[in-house]
């Protein structure tokens, strides 16, 4: 039925397809090897990165456990601004809850989400905040990151280190809006978003601190570790 030319074309396309498949198989195998080869190091560096941020907001004298292993997974929580499940790292001293750190997202930054890691003490008071990821204007709103802050002695974000427990709702604002927080001139949208998000998060932590520190998360912790 088919002419020799058609047979030839069929053979050529078959061979070409096989060559392509061979290349794909070879390079997929190469990628799989590279993935497995780098996996332990990548996990290690992700862990030490997280630990480095944690160490900035959780004073080492506050805990004697491994907060990265003592975790609880929270579902998406509007009060924290999170839209995906996030981890809570619990710090304990002599097995007593002493502090915890969790993800807080300010959805109303100048350009998109500002993702933070915030630490709270056993009473639920904020004791430290670090910005993990943001897209604020370079040179204008990015001073929320201590590395970009011109004031190296006392970066803006360190105002959250010692917020008095008695601070009223009205005081949780930048000075310009009648609160007690400083903000650099020219960029108030960014600090407003951060302060509002941390205030909401603190209310959430105070209201839920029993559950957040609960040991019940033992199996949540096991799941969390194997799942990763």
């Amino acid at each position, binding site marked *: 039925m088919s002419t020799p030319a058609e047979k030839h074309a069929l053979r050529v396309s078959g*061979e*070409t397809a096989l*060559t*392509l498949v061979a*290349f*794909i198989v070879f*390079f997929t195998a*190469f*990628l799989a090897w*590279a*993935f497995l*080869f*780098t996996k332990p*190091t*990548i996990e290690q*560096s*992700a862990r030490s*990165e997280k630990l480095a941020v944690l160490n900035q907001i959780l004073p080492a004298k506050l805990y004697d456990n491994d907060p990265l292993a003592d975790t609880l997974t929270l579902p998406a929580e509007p009060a924290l601004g999170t839209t995906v499940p996030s981890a809570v790292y619990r710090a304990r001293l002599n097995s007593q809850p002493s502090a915890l750190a969790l993800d807080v997202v300010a959805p109303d930054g100048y350009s998109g989400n500002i993702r933070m890691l915030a630490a709270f003490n056993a009473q639920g008071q904020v004791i430290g905040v670090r910005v993990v990821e943001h897209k604020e*204007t*370079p*040179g*204008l709103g990015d001073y929320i990151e201590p590395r970009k802050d*011109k004031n190296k002695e006392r970066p803006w974000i360190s105002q959250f280190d010692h917020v008095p427990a008695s601070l009223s709702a009205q005081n949780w604002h930048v000075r310009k809006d009648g609160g007690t927080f400083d903000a650099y001139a020219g960029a108030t949208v960014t600090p407003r978003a951060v302060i509002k998000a941390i205030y909401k998060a603190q209310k959430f932590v105070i209201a839920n601190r029993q559950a957040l520190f609960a040991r019940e998360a033992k199996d949540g912790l096991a799941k969390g570790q194997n799942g990763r």
Partner: protein
Amino acid sequence: MWITRDEFRDIATKGIWKQNTSLVQILGLCPLLAVTTNLVNGVMLSLATLLVMALSNFAVSSLRHFIPYEIRIPVFILIAAALVTVVDLLMNAYLHGLYVVLGIFIPLIITNCIVLARIEAFAAKNPPVQAASDGAMMGVGMLWTLALIGALREILGSGTLFSGIDLVIPGAQPLQLLPADYPGLLLAILPPGAFIVLGCIIAVKNWIDARQAERALKQANPLIAGGCQ
């Protein structure tokens, strides 16, 4: 098999100056705009691109006799994408701080037209050593351009140089070139600043080339050049 001195010199001049990716071919503008807000970022992304280009040119050139002409583009992309992914994984593992800063622009190296362009235009037709040199030298061209743009933008924009160096060499400190109370020039940090700086560098390069061409013309034929004046 090996490469002669003249061949290498020719490849190097083309990559570094005559066919400079950013100044002559104007390729890879997206990472150029986004990443050159400081010197370190520009250099490190260029190094990653250089590595990918040298490796992918070498791989394609070595395999060029096994790649059917009809499906060469998918195979080229497959090879280059695999190498980009490997570089991405390696940076994530061993230069994690920098990996976080450069973020999406490392995987996006594959969309930089220059990678495929050098594979198709050079590696597919030349032996492996020449192809690898071409990829590396094109990368060097990109490297010095992005380093220059990054340095200028960083000095103008924030008054520092080498900020973020601690992500590559732990403990190293950036230089404060302008007084610490320098207010910064936001325009230089934002993408339009990159366009302006790039435009100025292209203008300087064209000026140098034009002057050289004029001089060469004068040497070749003093009469004509004299008549022009």
